[in-house]
């Protein structure tokens, strides 16, 4: 398998705090890779660096064979690298359907086309069916439950046909049934060719779904390997429980 995402010696500091410290790892194409670590280990900062929300102070990020270090988040998205947020971020005053359409990754010229074209409706409609959001398609996103918003955010980033999706705690604050639903969607989409990098604290979820698992501590990668090996790795135990 080729590496779809390569992070090399990435550094990101906030004042004297090195949130990401010479971090390097790779994400193989078609994998579901987990990125775990204690709170404050730099996972979300790393996500922000990879997806162009933050510029790294040093190091390199390559996606699909191209150096994309510091590239604008919108451009990365249009090139097939998309993400969700820890706190589901949807556009509350847009309808559920419009939340999908707006994420279609349109060109400048397409801005002058219809708000929701027939093609948009069909494409969004298929995703809404798949995520069982069709009955609420015309509601405002602000009227959805938190779990539904998480699903909507996930569905929306699929609108542009991404190659790599970064999910930031997809199961946080979501009920067990919804967690299963989320897991099923990730598996299905992975089968159809999308690579996932997932930050998650729910270890059962990670063990069931992800391989390999990357562990971060204090901004550095301390382990990368099979999920069963994670639990017995002394470095990982030390990071989580302290020596």
């Amino acid at each position, binding site marked *: 398998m080729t590496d779809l995402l390569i992070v090399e010696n990435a550094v990101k500091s906030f004042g004297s705090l090195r949130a990401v410290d010479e971090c390097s790892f790779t994400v193989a194409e078609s994998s579901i890779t987990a990125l775990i670590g204690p709170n404050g280990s730099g996972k979300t900062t790393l996500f922000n660096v990879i*997806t*162009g*929300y933050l510029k790294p102070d040093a190091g390199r990020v390559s996606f699909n064979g191209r150096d994309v270090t510091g590239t*604008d*988040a*919108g451009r990365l*998205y*249009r090139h097939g690298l*998309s*993400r969700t*947020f820890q706190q589901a*971020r949807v*556009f*509350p*005053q*847009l*309808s559920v359907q*419009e939340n999908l*359409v*707006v*994420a*279609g*990754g*349109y060109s*400048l010229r*397409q*801005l*002058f*086309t*219809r*708000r*929701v074209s027939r093609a948009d409706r069909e494409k969004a409609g298929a995703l809404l069916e798949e995520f069982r959001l069709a*009955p*609420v398609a*015309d*509601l*405002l996103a602000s*009227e959805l439950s938190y779990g539904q918003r998480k699903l909507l955010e996930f569905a*929306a*980033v699929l609108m*542009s046909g991404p190659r790599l999706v970064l999910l930031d705690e997809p199961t946080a604050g979501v009920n067990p049934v919804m967690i299963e639903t989320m897991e099923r969607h990730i598996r299905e989409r992975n089968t159809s060719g999308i690579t996932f990098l997932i930050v998650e604290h729910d270890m059962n979820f990670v063990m069931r779904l992800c391989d390999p698992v990357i562990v971060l501590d204090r901004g550095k990668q301390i382990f990368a390997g099979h999920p069963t090996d994670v639990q017995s790795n002394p470095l990982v135990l030390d990071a989580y429980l302290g020596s």
Partner: protein
Amino acid sequence: MSRLGVLRGAAFFATLVALPSFNLAHWVMNMAVFVLMFAVMSSAWNLVGGFAGYPSLGHAAFFGIGAYAVALWYKNHELTNAWHPFLALPLIALIAALVGLPIAMISMRTRADVFAIVTITVLFVAQTLAFNLRSITDGAQGLAIPPATFSVTTFERPFYYVLTVLLAFAMAITWASMRSKIGLALSSVRADEDKARGVGVHVTAVKLLAFCVSVGITAMVGAIWAYYESFIYPQFAIDPLITIAMVLMTFLGGRATLWGPVVGALVLETAQQVLAYQFGGSKIYLIAYALVFLLVMLLLPRGILPTIQDWLRQRRRRLATDNVPPPAANLPPAAVPAAHGGRA
């Protein structure tokens, strides 16, 4: 557009076109001209302040650019045809948009209250320039524009009709943007700009487009105003009160709606003009004007149109639930379709 929307628009503009034929008194026509000016400017401001959620307080600077563009041109040129200044309006809009572009590129890197402060600075810089570039603007002495040579009995009509066309233009642009992906992109910017950027929305492009179109239209109104008044001073051509009026009218009528700014202008500008006539030179009219605004904000905090829409929606829901037989009343709330916010 729905059939009702077309009818509403047609009826509104037919009324506007027919109004002067009732031979209204000069003061009424004068008031109508000012109501139209503010309706156009509020509609223009709504593109940036309403749809994109960037509360610009600098729009009066562009009103002033339009006013000074006309005044400066006729400082050195003869007015041979009374309609000529109107023909120059598209060019004035273009100039204002070009001036607005770098200003937007810099100021729109900030948001919300910081953006408001940056743009109000632009306003005061423009006013200071108008005061101090005496060799060009004649400073505080002001500039005269040759008076329009229209018939005295129907003097206001040409201005009135040009402003009607401009209002149709501003509303058509608003409507078209709401119907296109530009409107969708602007809504996403207003809700969560970082997220919008992250899902590939051309955030910068739509913001700059909205700003440039908005200030272009504002400058056209400034030019018409200057020609109508035929004398301009820096403190009136670049007046914070003009900006404040645009903001208040848009908020009053309903932000990010098609008709909100028009309704706001109709209510506030009419109130202001009538109160100014009633209370004459005393400043009591300003207090009365503020009172009108306070009352509406107290009773209709989201603006007139969105509040009425909410009220109608609730009433429809109530009627629907009243008429539904008992078993179906157990439907979850999600099954009741909700109208979209901000689509008047």
